[in-house]
């Protein structure tokens, strides 16, 4: 090993240290920004080191330089533009898109290496073939799966589970071709077979994500994130680059942890989610009255209840984000705080379309993060709350989850029914994702404010202001 290679390898180790420290600093909102800066520094170092390696190799043709630099400029421009203009409600789509391009790039790195080695007289060594197969399979599944997920989140593709006759069979067939082709490649190196398994993996990604409904997206995005990390690590195996292996493994770990947390928060196994959820999506407008009396309330009366409460817990759900009403809720909370009330937010792990999504939306609306409480932290506090204000959340507040034998049995829920009184802002008595009646709505302590989240909150703000005088 030459001195030059020693130095570049050590610089890669330094950048890996930055990635780990950067992720470590994310354990508190106070240090998270510094974490991102440290991680950015590590990335800059890794890219600079790679640039030095590329120059040092001295084999890059003029065309090679042009395509590489042009590619970087085009990609960087697109990334910068999308990162600066994206709405916070659209974060899940953007993360999905970055998963897609990351996984796609990882697959292409292996494709190039494989084609080059297959053309050489020495052939493809076995220790390269296996990571190559894993890289192209995982990378291609991530690419097409993430694009479908982004399309569903953006509303370009039907967000409800989409299945057609034989869609399961197509999915299984794609998996069989991918794995079978991969096994063939280990025995007999072949570029055409690699192209076949890439196509099969792309088809597998599409047929895997299409049947999954919108409310399961937090799990899907986390899983695809883990896939991307693994694909990048495999690309590192292929080209023998430690920086890719370490960074890919870190992302793989992060994605796996989040996948497990999200699946646990829905009390569903990963297998159950991938096979296709219950219900038909999150937009069932079915008007079905649960067995019991529902008490409807006007905005004025709800405002009085809120204005004279000492302790208020707001329970935001995806309906709030869908109505783009996070700024209104923050304004109402600020108003109530001015009157001396204690306001906090109860955030269920799956409130939103990706892990922690609701926290970002509320942070954007200028809600201080100490007010955002996790489920375990807030649940004991509900019994002391004068009012629990539920906005656009349904299944995660349904006490039926505590009993056995319902569609959501065992799902961890927010103990909203423990509050002294409950106000639910909801457009209709429609069902949530699980497609069952919410027993909270017939609780004698509950008043229903039937309206769109945004207009209801605007009315509440106006009414509270009038009361203040």
């Amino acid at each position, binding site marked *: 090993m030459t001195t030059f290679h020693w130095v570049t390898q050590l610089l890669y180790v330094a950048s890996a240290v930055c990635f780990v420290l950067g992720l470590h600093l994310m354990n508190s909102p106070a240090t998270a*920004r510094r974490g991102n800066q440290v991680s950015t520094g590590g990335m800059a170092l890794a890219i600079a080191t790679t640039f030095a390696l590329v120059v040092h190799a001295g084999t890059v043709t003029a065309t090679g330089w042009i395509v590489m630099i042009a590619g970087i400029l085009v990609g960087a421009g697109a990334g910068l533009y999308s990162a600066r203009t994206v709405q916070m409600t659209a974060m899940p789509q953007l993360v999905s898109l970055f998963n897609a391009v990351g996984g796609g790039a990882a697959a292409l790195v292996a494709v190039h290496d494989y084609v080059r080695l297959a053309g050489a007289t020495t052939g493809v060594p076995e220790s390269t073939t296996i990571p190559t197969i894993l890289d192209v399979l995982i990378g291609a599944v991530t690419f097409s799966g993430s694009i479908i997920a982004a399309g569903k989140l953006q509303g370009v593709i039907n967000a409800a589970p989409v299945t057609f006759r034989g869609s399961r069979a197509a999915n299984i067939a794609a998996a069989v071709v991918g794995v079978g082709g991969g096994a063939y490649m280990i025995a007999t190196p072949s570029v055409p077979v690699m192209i076949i398994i890439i196509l099969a993996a792309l088809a597998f990604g599409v047929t895997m994500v299409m049947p999954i409904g919108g409310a399961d997206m937090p799990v899907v995005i986390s899983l695809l994130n883990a896939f991307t990390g693994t694909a990048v690590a495999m690309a590192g195996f292929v080209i023998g680059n430690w920086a890719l292996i370490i960074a890919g*493994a870190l992302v793989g770990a992060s994605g796996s942890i989040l996948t497990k947390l999200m699946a646990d928060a829905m009390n569903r196994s990963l297998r159950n989610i991938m096979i296709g959820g219950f219900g038909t999506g999150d937009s069932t407008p079915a008007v079905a009255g649960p067995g019991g009396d529902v008490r409807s309330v006007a905005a004025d009366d709800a405002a009085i209840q809120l204005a004279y409460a000492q302790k208020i817990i707001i329970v935001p759900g995806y309906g709030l984000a869908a109505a783009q009403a996070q700024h209104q809720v923050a304004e109402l909370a600020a108003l109530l705080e001015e009157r001396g009330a204690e306001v906090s937010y109860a955030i269920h792990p799956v409130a939103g379309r990706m892990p922690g999504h609701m926290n970002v939306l509320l942070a954007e609306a200028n809600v201080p993060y100490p007010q955002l409480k996790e489920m375990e932290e807030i649940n004991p506090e509900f019994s002391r709350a004068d009012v629990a204000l539920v906005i656009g959340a349904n299944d995660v507040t349904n006490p039926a989850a505590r009993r056995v034998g319902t569609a959501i049995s065992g799902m961890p829920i927010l103990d909203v029914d423990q509050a002294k009184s409950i106000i639910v802002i909801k457009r209709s008595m429609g069902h949530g994702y699980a497609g069952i009646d919410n027993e909270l709505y017939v609780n004698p302590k509950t008043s229903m404010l039937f309206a769109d989240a945004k207009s209801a909150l605007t009315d509440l703000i106006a009414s509270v202001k009038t009361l203040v005088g």
Partner: protein
Amino acid sequence: MTAELLTDITIFVLALLVGFEVISKVPATLHTPLMSAANSIHGIVLAGAMLIAVTADNALGYILAFVAAAFAAMNVVGGYVVTGRMLKMFRRSRAPVPAGDTPAAVNGQRTGGRA
């Protein structure tokens, strides 16, 4: 099977364990920025994309180098910028609102981006 492969597997497994250890301490409040940060980190694949150029000498190689570099650069630049933008929003206390009405009430919504 080579010694290099064994080293690579060792590094991979240890990095995976470090990842589990570090990331399991991140609070739920920061899960979206965490995922976005992890997203930026897998932008390291840009290093791999750049190295394609070292051995590319035909049309296919150039196309792969271009597309891979574009994909990876989008990943890395977009990832870090959007993570930074998000983290800037997390405040311990309410940011002072300019005199007059709140921007939220005036505009209904903001993109939150001054980045």
